[in-house]
């Protein structure tokens, strides 16, 4: 992947907004609705002055005209720190060659990061790999998206590194986006997200699915899990039908479980246009 490769994608997502699903708790002004009410120029409502209110928020002109003290309230907007947790296990390198799940996840990550960064949100990256964890702290300065792209270029999916442990390193990021096929430690990852959700943070689960996983070809008739070579199963016409049903049920269960836990959950197929998928993800 190169920077030039993402050029059309970055052009296509320019202007898109990715509003936070929950009111932001950040202090710095940004593009997302904040839980705080402040003195921003955008008027929201008047409220009678109560003891303890900041006298600077008094509408002095209204007080002079009506001799009643009112507080001028305005909608506060703040930033939402966003961090992307990418699954770089061996299962993401499927199908072999171009158009695999890893490339689709990278495209989604870059596009969504560009949208968030354009809104002034800090954007960070976490990629646990077999050789260590690739980490990019959330930042808002220029070139962050390019740095994220360069960081992703260094990663080749391999091994079976769990994702749940990496959630402890997300810091104060308000929004966590997990891009994975959830074939690893999905249950542990979901449990690790529970404290984040309880802390009113926003968790997005993006399930990346390959077309070849939805409808695998019979091929040689024997398939094997790249992360667990011991798992070797004969794939025949009849076993494929059972596989398709089982896999669909599992995907449904996973989506249901994540949504039940309070996270946003979406599935993306590798054959889907990244721009279309990103539009769908940021608007749901």
């Amino acid at each position: 992947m190169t920077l030039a490769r993402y050029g059309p994608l970055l052009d296509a997502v320019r202007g898109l907004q990715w509003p936070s699903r929950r009111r932001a708790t950040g202090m710095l002004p940004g593009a997302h609705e904040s839980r705080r009410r402040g003195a921003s120029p955008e008027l929201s409502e008047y409220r009678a002055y109560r003891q303890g209110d900041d006298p600077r928020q008094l509408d002095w002109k209204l007080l002079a005209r009506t001799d009643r003290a009112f507080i001028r309230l305005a909608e506060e907007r703040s930033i939402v720190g966003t961090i992307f947790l990418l699954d770089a296990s061996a299962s993401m390198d499927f199908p072999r060659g171009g158009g695999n799940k890893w490339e689709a996840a990278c495209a989604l990550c870059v596009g969504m990061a560009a949208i968030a960064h354009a809104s002034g949100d800090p954007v960070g990256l976490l990629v646990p790999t077999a050789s260590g964890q690739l980490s990019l702290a959330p930042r808002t300065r220029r070139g962050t998206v390019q740095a994220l792209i360069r960081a992703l270029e260094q990663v080749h999916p391999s091994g079976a590194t769990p994702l749940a442990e990496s959630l402890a390193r997300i810091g104060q990021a308000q929004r966590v986006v997990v891009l994975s096929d959830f074939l690893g430690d999905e249950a542990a990852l979901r449990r690790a997200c529970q404290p984040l959700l309880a802390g009113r943070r926003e968790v997005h689960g993006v399930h990346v699915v390959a077309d070849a996983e939805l409808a695998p070809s019979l091929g040689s008739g024997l398939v094997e899990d790249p992360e667990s070579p011991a798992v070797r199963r004969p794939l025949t016409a009849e076993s494929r039908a059972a596989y398709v049903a089982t896999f669909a049920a599992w995907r449904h269960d996973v989506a249901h479980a994540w949504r039940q836990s309070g996270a946003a959950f979406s599935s993306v197929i590798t054959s889907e246009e990244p721009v279309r998928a990103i539009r769908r993800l940021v608007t749901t």
Partner: protein
Amino acid sequence: MMSLAAPAYLWGALLAAVAVTALHLLARRERRAEPLPTARFVPDRVATSVVRPDRLKDVALLALRLLALTLIGLAASRPTWTARASGTARIVIVDRGAGAWGPTVDVVQQLSQGVATSLVLVDSSARMTTVEQLSVREDSLAPAVAGSMSAAFVLAVREAQVLTRRFTRVELHVVSPMLTAELDAATLSIRRLWPDSVIIHDVPARPNESVMAGMETILSIDDPVGAAARLTQPIRADGRASIRIRRGAPTSDDIRWVGDAARILLVWPDSATTMRGIDTLDAVTSSTATVTGYFRRSGAAPIGRPIMWWSDGAVAAGEAVTGQGCVRSVAFSPSPRGDAAISFGVRRIMERLLAPCGATVLGEKAPANARGVLAAPGPPGRATPVPAPDGPRFLPAVLLLAAGLALLAEQWVRRPNATPAVRA
């Protein structure tokens, strides 16, 4: 033309190749597993189901294995490369040691005209030569010697193994007077190695070199030595005899006499000291004969080069060169009793003692029946001489090396195709 010394190995290798081909065709291999991250959702059944290939696969692998097997079998069968044979060749055993030189060369030249001829020259040894070398050789001046026909036959059979590569028929000719001294106990057995008949060309033997210009004796009239000597050499009383026989120590006149010309002084022990009490059988042997009888050993050892020995190896007679002649001293005497002194054996002994100085006595011709046995064809069913290989002797090694290379190539071809699948 390739011939195999042990073709059974090649047949065995071909059978093994057939078996390998059958196994290759019957081999049922497990399908190659393809990666699928969601393989866990495929129903877990027996993953070792196998299918038979519907067409021949790994042709190069099979070809290399068959090639290696065939080469190993071919190398084990000891192949030899021989040229295509045609025509007739002759092997001529030339008895240079005993045969008269002129007639021998004439016969050899007649035999070698228009036919490829190999010559086995026999004298004190047997060796190969050519007709050209035979013609220029001054063999008439060489000393007469009774060669070994056994050695000549061995060399002829060996040469025949070489010639049968190029000729369909090989004849064996012997140009020799065929003396008894040239035959030994092994001659007939060695001759049987030749499956065909042997053509013997009889040539006269070398002239009898033991003929001297008479003798004079200084012996008593009843001395048995004198009787035996007279059967071999005539008595010459004109003072021009070339052999003098005496008993007892030689005088200075004898020494001077023998040194003036090519003469022989034969000195026998004194009869007074040797003729008493002869009661023990003993044997005396020379290069041509062995005789047993009542001999009494002399106390004095013979002088010069030994020419006769007792049965226990002690020297019985010696020859010492004196001037142009030689003195032969004898350490025994024949018994005076009966006709032992004129027996055949004593006469042969006497012929050796009266032979010219340094000469060899060739002996007599072999009996006619012995010559017939040698000339007759070999026993029926005996194989012809096996052609000797004229190709590279290292052909099996080359084949084994090629087989090794094929096996290495087989490893190289198999490695890219290596899969965790196992053959059923």
